[in-house]
């Protein structure tokens, strides 16, 4: 089997051989940090602000809402006893609830932890096991592109996959790139001698590496234009897809690996910068509050990870940003994805696009619906589509040439529902640097 050769055996084994439907044999002790996350249920005064903001509860009765499955249900969960509150699985994990809660209840985080307990007990369906393994899928699919892109475009096969796996036949998957971003970077030479002092490790994530190397290329171009030395460290999937599917054991394994691989760079004076607001949020916040990983190295990584626009804004404030943009006028709809919002850094990408001369119409919708892999699931596709509908309608109304969004899964989802090309804001900025010498 030539396919297996490219796969890490342990990953393969854990991904496919754990029996489904049986209580998992391995019981992880509840980490004290995650215990503190769940104890934020104490802060709830039942005001319902989260429930009125929840995009999922607004469109389906299958999800009783963040207050009900979050702080309310949390008081009835016991570390040793199984809990049968399966409705928590209808939480998309978008995090809007945690963001709007005026009292500091970490609702989405609590729900992620509750889902992991369900997975510990009842096992992970093969479908979720597959969807969570973005790195594995990339490793498998990328070398065989464009051939590997054909199967997922065949309607009869998609019907079969829907019937047997529960991945909705309407869900569109991105195309694998034959050349990965990492391979491109190995051959890439920085254009001009770098005289700056800032050193960056670029966290590309799975999407940039296997599907959209252009996003990484744009990021490198922008960073190098600003005299920044960019390195690509050894890194893994951030683990978020597994975490949001409730497989904390695998997510923690990836998280620990990233902490181990990246912390030494931070000690050397590098900062970690990424274009995927989901990956960077995982490194910054979720390793700690959801996966319960603590320690000097984890904290070091969390404190020195930045979204690329957050980082560029810092450069700008320090007067170190090259602001000689080629001005362009274009109207775009900019959708700040949920994970970007959870960074709590404002909307620096929108600000930069405006400086380039763009007319930026900001999305009035909190979540596009897909929430990573949530919307790809058969039983959730329609819910996710209903969540995103106001956004799709807004896009249709504005009718821009392009939609701009920081998160890959959101871009793909928006593209498939609106037919509009969706790009990362760093691509827009890279364009604005083109055609001008330093």
């Amino acid at each position: 089997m030539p396919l297996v050769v490219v796969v890490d055996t342990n990953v393969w084994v854990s991904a496919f051989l754990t029996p489904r439907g049986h209580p998992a044999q391995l019981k992880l002790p509840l980490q004290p940090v995650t215990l503190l996350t769940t104890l934020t249920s104490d802060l709830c005064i039942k005001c319902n602000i989260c429930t009125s903001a929840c995009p999922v509860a607004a469109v389906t009765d299958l999800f009783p809402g963040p207050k009900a499955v979050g702080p309310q249900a949390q008081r009835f969960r016991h570390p040793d006893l199984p809990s049968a509150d399966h409705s928590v699985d209808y939480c998309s994990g978008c995090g809007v609830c945690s963001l709007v809660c005026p009292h500091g209840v970490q609702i989405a985080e609590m729900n992620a932890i509750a889902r992991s307990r369900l997975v510990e007990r009842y096992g992970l369906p093969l479908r979720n096991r597959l969807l969570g393994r973005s790195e594995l899928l990339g490793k498998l699919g990328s070398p065989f592109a464009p051939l590997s892109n054909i199967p997922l475009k065949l309607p009869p096969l998609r019907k079969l996959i829907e019937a047997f796996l529960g991945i909705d036949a309407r869900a569109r998957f991105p195309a694998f790139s034959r050349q990965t971003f990492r391979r491109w970077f190995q051959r890439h030479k920085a254009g001009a001698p770098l005289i700056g002092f800032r050193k960056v490790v670029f966290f590309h994530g799975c999407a940039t590496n296997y599907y959209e190397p252009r996003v990484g290329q744009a990021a490198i171009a922008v960073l190098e234009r600003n005299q920044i030395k960019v390195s690509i460290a050894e890194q893994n999937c951030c683990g978020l897809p597994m975490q949001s599917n409730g497989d904390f054991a695998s997510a923690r394994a990836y998280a620990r690996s990233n902490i181990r691989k990246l912390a030494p760079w931070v000690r050397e004076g590098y900062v970690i910068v990424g274009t995927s607001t989901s990956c960077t949020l995982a490194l910054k916040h979720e390793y700690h509050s959801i996966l319960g990983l603590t320690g000097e190295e984890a904290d070091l990584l969390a404190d020195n990870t930045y979204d690329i626009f957050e980082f560029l804004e810092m450069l700008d404030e320090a007067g170190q940003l090259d602001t000689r943009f080629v001005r362009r006028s274009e109207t775009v709809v900019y959708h700040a994805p949920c994970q970007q919002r959870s960074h709590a850094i404002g909307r620096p990408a929108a600000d930069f696009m405006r400086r380039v001369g763009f007319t930026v119409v900001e999305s009035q919708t909190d979540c596009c619906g897909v929430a990573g892999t949530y919307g790809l699931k058969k039983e959730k596709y329609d819910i996710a589509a209903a969540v995103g509908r106001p956004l799709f309608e807004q896009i249709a109304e504005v009718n821009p040439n392009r939609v701009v969004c920081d998160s890959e899964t959101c871009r793909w989802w928006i593209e498939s529902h609106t037919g509009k090309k969706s790009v990362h804001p760093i691509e827009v900025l890279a364009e604005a640097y083109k055609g001008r010498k330093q």
Partner: protein
Amino acid sequence: MKLSTELLILGGGATGLGAAWDAALRGFKTVVLEKGDLAHGTSGRYHGLLHSGGRYVVRDPQSARECAAENAALRRIIPSAIEDTGGYFLSTPADPADYADQFLAACHTCAVPVTEITTAQALQREPLLNPRLGRVFQVRDAACDSFDALHLLAHGLRAAGGEVFLRHRVTEILKSGDRVVGVAGENLATGEPFTFHADLVLNCSGAWAGHIAALAGCEVKVTAGKGVMIAMNSRLVNTVVNRLKPPADGDILVPVGTVSVIGTTDTAVPSPDQYAIEDWEVDLLMGEGEQLIPGFSRHRALRAWAGVRPLYDPGGKDTRHMSRAHALLDHEERDGVSGMLSMVGGKFTTFRHMAQLLVDAACAKLKTDRPCVTARTLIEPPGTPLHALPKRLEALESGKWQTASDATTDTGQPPTASHQQPAATICECELVTRSQIETNLRQSGSPILNDLRRDLRLGMGPCQAGFCAYRAAGIIHETLGHSHRNSNSQLLQFLQERWKGERPVMWGHSLRSLELDLHIYRSILGLDTLPTEREIEVYPTERTS
């Protein structure tokens, strides 16, 4: 109303219901009179600990032995009201180090099962505990929901042919010469007088036993030992945690249901009906909590309440050193008044044993020999037992509590075959549904809002009835067809009770929550202006002690 029975038991707490159940099983015609609701008194106000006996081994070996035996017995007969949390006795840096060996030796002497574990094991299970623990001993403590337990006893009693009359207050003991022949009083629900004749009256009225005995012309001195407890909003521990030191204020933390209860203080109060919770008591408990769990006082406190221990006082000591043991009083021997026995003192854990002694004595008085069978009679719960923590969530999730009215209330749409509609949750904190309330109203005689609390836990969660009281009041009003004034009065009284319990811990998150509740009831619903049956003060801001 004139009625008669063989055994008439005064008091619907653990002792009274235990004795009634025991007597009914022995074939006596048995009736219980209770002036309030089940568990209205001390039984409904206790911390929820089913003692392993460890607390008493050093100072009161007799109580320790009884607790150990009764702990095992109650696990057999009312398992659905008990959560097997296990318990730790652990020494914090503030506790005397030499107590540990004394404790261990005394446990062995008193046959209280005990195992020493490492601090690492204790911290693994209870990560919030003070990491600077000394020695840790594991014992067979458990959590017992006294509301569930008393409902089970009442259920067992009825199944054995006995009866419970709630809201029947005794105002007179009827005597023929020096012999007690019955009681007279008032049905508080209807205002009607009643008389009850009985072969024998058993006084099980706990902290009120002295009052009842006085009606028969006997002097029984029962000291009311007030114990203050604070319920924390979450289960900070899942194991009962005891301080490894001689019994003292604030030495125990009990996970019971959704909360954890820190207790208790111990001060004598002049009357079991009037007492206040003092600031120093709250401060003391929060401070002791800090010893067990660093940061304890920054976690959310839900409410504070007090119960009064009925301590039989043959004279002398302060309440902490007064025996927790029970005393069976034969008034014929003691006061020359026949036809009445009193059981005073004691503790929740040993109620079955006390009941057995009392009914044995009753048998002797009635010159009949009927053996006690309670130690080996299991009481099957009438419905789904909900005491284990995830059970309510499971039931809600599975749609077990759903009725047609539930299914259509939220969305106006009938449930489809493929998707269950969510049940209408009335009390969101304790997950009480509309159908549970309706069933309860159908089954119980003349319930008031506060009975729903004791029966279903309505209004006992974090928002302390902020979101459920007006909903439940509406359902009661609709279902029972009370007058508006009556329903309003119930709503007001219920809220007063909730707010009273919140006042001593009104800071931080609780205060924030209470402010929201006050806006709901006063600003939106105009609680102050509702027409009621009589003047009810809304939310007094001055302490009334």
